[in-house]
């Protein structure tokens, strides 16, 4: 009996051994897979157990909280709330336990969640003191007054507005319309979240799309600024004269470039200065200039403004582009912002800002600093020059070229197509654009500019899809310039 009991004992010891091995398998080898399994809600609950940091806009007395977390009795303890609703949706993004996070909520999640390396020691201290961990506050550069002006000005139309401070790259406004209410996606109720998600995705106007950075548009005539820059960079002057034909025959094809008012010259039919050509947005002249400069010069200047490079920005953006190899007809058409040239509104705001800032492009900055719950700065993001094609100086064109462009763009608002952007008492520099979408389709209308022209504190890009309220008869000067003026006024503090 001793022997059989001893054997039985060994059998049960073996069973304990199996349990031990299996536990090691589960809690060491498979542990990470199990812990991070998408249907393991523990991570999620832990995440929602921390008061997520706020996101603010504006400074001083004007500061508003655009995202904050409120404690609830739900199993997910903290609810993300966006008091301003849709107004800042495309800046904050949403924070959804089903559909993840977007925009600032996503890019600065480590800080918002209080788990960035910078906060490690503070968190340890908090844990020792028994204080709850709290997320950090993200301070954005957005100016509520400018943001609101842009929202109001765009209302009802589809498009985007980006306003920057040319000196620092600060994003003063970033608006995309139509927008959505991020509260719908950030609730704790999966049913309504899914419903909201489905209807937002089914909406043909795609309100979830941030048009200011994630949509590519043909820049239309706003691109003539870059063509003009290419010319000035190569010794041209605003007073240089060019032929003023009614139509420009494109080499190698039977196609022609016409002016906006078809069948008419821009000036007297014989000659026109570069400045006047920009003022009236003369297609034929710019086609001629581009053919004279050649494709390489055009592409090079466009790239020096950041096209064909990924933008260094706080949130991911689409990359604006111009084909590197252009045949002659494409060169002429690209020079007036048609064909395959595609840009984001942010890109064009940066072009305007760089021109206003002596040719130096600053890195667009959406977040200026991160603060802890007591307002202490955890991390700062000082203004930086934009690195273009690996060069960190941010010098897009020479200061002389920038000055020439500023002079011509000021004339556009004073005497040309951009007069709707004029602000009494403040010199405004700008350029309109009306990007053809094809036969019978309403154009996308553009305006880029900055003010005051001599010492700019704000640059803006406005795009309105399908001519906005004006439809097929919409033009950059008619639809986008007034919006730009409203935004510039808000930024300048004039009414």
């Amino acid at each position, binding site marked *: *009996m*001793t*022997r*059989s*009991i*001893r054997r*039985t*004992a060994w059998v*049960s*010891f073996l*069973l*304990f051994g*199996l*349990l*031990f091995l*299996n*536990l*090691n398998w*589960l*809690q*060491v080898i*498979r*542990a*990470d*897979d*199990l*812990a991070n*399994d998408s*249907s*393991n*809600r*523990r*991570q999620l*609950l*832990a995440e929602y157990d921390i008061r997520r940091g706020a996101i603010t806009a504006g400074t001083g007395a004007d500061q508003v909280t655009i995202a904050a977390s409120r404690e609830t009795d739900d*199993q997910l303890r903290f609810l993300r709330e966006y008091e301003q609703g849709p107004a800042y949706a495309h800046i904050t993004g949403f924070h959804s336990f089903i559909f993840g996070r977007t925009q600032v909520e996503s890019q600065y999640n480590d800080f918002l969640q209080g788990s960035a390396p910078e906060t490690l020691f503070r968190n340890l201290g908090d844990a020792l003191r*028994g204080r709850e961990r709290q997320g950090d506050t993200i301070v954005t550069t957005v100016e509520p007054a400018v943001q609101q002006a842009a929202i109001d000005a765009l209302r009802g139309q589809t498009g985007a507005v980006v306003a920057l401070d040319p000196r620092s790259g600060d994003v003063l406004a970033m608006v995309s319309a139509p927008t959505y209410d991020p509260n719908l996606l950030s609730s704790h109720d999966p049913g309504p979240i899914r419903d909201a998600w489905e209807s937002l995705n089914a909406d043909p106007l795609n309100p979830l799309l941030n048009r200011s950075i994630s949509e590519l548009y043909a820049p239309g005539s706003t691109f003539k600024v870059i063509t003009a820059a290419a010319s000035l960079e190569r010794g041209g002057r605003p007073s240089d004269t060019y032929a003023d034909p009614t139509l420009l025959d494109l080499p190698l094809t039977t196609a022609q470039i016409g002016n906006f008012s078809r069948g008419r010259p821009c000036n007297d039919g014989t000659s026109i200065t570069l400045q006047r050509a920009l003022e009236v947005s003369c297609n034929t002249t710019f086609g001629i200039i581009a053919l004279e400069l050649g494709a390489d010069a055009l592409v090079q200047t466009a790239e020096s403004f950041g096209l064909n490079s990924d933008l260094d920005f706080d949130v991911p953006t689409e990359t604006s582009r111009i084909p590197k190899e252009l045949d002659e007809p494409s060169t002429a058409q690209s020079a007036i912002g048609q064909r395959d040239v595609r840009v984001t509104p942010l890109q064009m705001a940066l072009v305007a800002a760089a021109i206003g800032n002596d040719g130096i492009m600053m890195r667009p900055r959406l977040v200026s600093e991160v603060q802890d719950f007591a307002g202490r700065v955890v991390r700062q993001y000082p203004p930086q020059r934009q690195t273009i094609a690996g060069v960190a100086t941010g010098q897009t064109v020479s200061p002389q070229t920038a000055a020439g462009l500023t002079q011509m763009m000021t004339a556009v608002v004073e005497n040309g197509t951009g007069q709707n952007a004029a602000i009494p008492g403040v010199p405004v520099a700008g350029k309109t654009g009306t990007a053809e979408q094809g036969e019978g389709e309403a154009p996308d209308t553009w305006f880029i500019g900055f003010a005051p022209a001599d010492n700019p504190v704000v640059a803006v890009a406005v795009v309105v899809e399908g001519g906005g309220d004006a439809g097929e008869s919409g033009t950059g000067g008619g639809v986008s310039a007034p919006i730009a003026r409203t935004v510039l006024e808000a930024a300048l503090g004039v009414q």
Partner: protein
Amino acid sequence: MKLFRRGRDTTAASAADRRRAFTELALLILAILITLSAYTLVNLAQSPQLPAGLLAYGGVLAALAAAAHIVVRRLAPGADPLLLPIGFLLNGIGLAMVNRIDFAVRTREGALQLAPLQTIWTIVGIALFCGTILFLRDHTILDRYRYIIGLVAVVALVTPLLPVIGTDFGRGSRIWIRVPGGFSLQPGEFAKLGLVIFFASYLAEKRALLSAATSRLGPLHVPPARAFGPVGLAWIVSLAVLVFERDLGLSLLIFSIFVAMLYMATGRIAYVAAGGLLFASGALAAWSQFSHVQTRVAIWLDPFADAQDTGFQLVQSLFALGTGGVAGVGWGQGNPELIPDVPTDFIFAALGEELGLLGTTAILLLYFLIAGRGFTIALRAPDDFSRLLAAGLTFVFSLQVFVIVGGVTRLIPLTGITLPFMSQGGSSLLANYILIALLVMISAARPAADASGVSGNLARVGK
């Protein structure tokens, strides 16, 4: 018997006894300190103050430990000094975890508080532990009442099938009876002990007979069928009852304990082979006949195939264990409420999440220690009945740990049984305290005389 022992070697025995008493006392104090730390940690995770009733709680634990310690040392001097402290510690950790789960569930839906009830069960459990030693004095008395005990065990198993008092609480297994006063009991937990006592007693007497192959069944030499009668009957009735009650875990335990004890009594591996064969065919039959068995097996093979429905519980358990990893997420920092039935069947997974591999290994080691001590006690026991009883109790205890821990860790298909001393619920706790009390008594027993129990039993066989 006791007079003889004392007379024989008083000084040596008492010195060893004193050493054991000291060991037990020191371990009990350690168990109380660990339990109070656990209780404090669990409460600190909820609010930054020390729990209000910490001193009172420590006082109650100390009083319970002192009572059990005094009873053991007075009535079973020389008893194994590890069993009681380990059982007490497992009980304490279980209490802390039930308390912790209460917090998790309360914040969610303000449900029933289980910890106060479990504390009452702990007090009753220790009382029963003391009572067993006090009133039984000598466990060999059980040998005399084997048929009564066997009958009571079978009747206890049947009671949940009775109308009115029996119930399944809507959980599929009809294994509870309602006790006046709002309590419920699982008679199966006690019946399990009764069957082990009955088997031990019967097999100790008939083991020579069962070892001898006297008749032939075809090519096989088999013992006389008559010898199997009572144990076979008890066994078959138990299994039949459990099939109706749909209690897979207890069926498995009773089947295994029968086969194991038959083997331990006779040393004939043929019983294990036959048992294994029977188990395989029985399992196959059950699998082909019962959908709930098929579901269990399917979940075991791939719990993630239906992770939101049938596999949900096991998947949540595996998530908890994986999330815990090596060091655990910390006591009070996990989400035990995500696992259905966490305070009963799945308490081990909750411990695995918050205490990690370190904690689960420590807990397994505690069970392993009880198993080791139990088998040692069996090997040193003075007579066949005591040996078989100790070995049987230890085996059923170890196997129960294996079945439930193996189930929640997906080593084997899940069968809902309790984790000894830890699962919330009174019956299991009381039964396990009685089990430990029996082992304690056996460990203190000394040989009656030079003539060993073996010869005594052989003499009985000869009658």
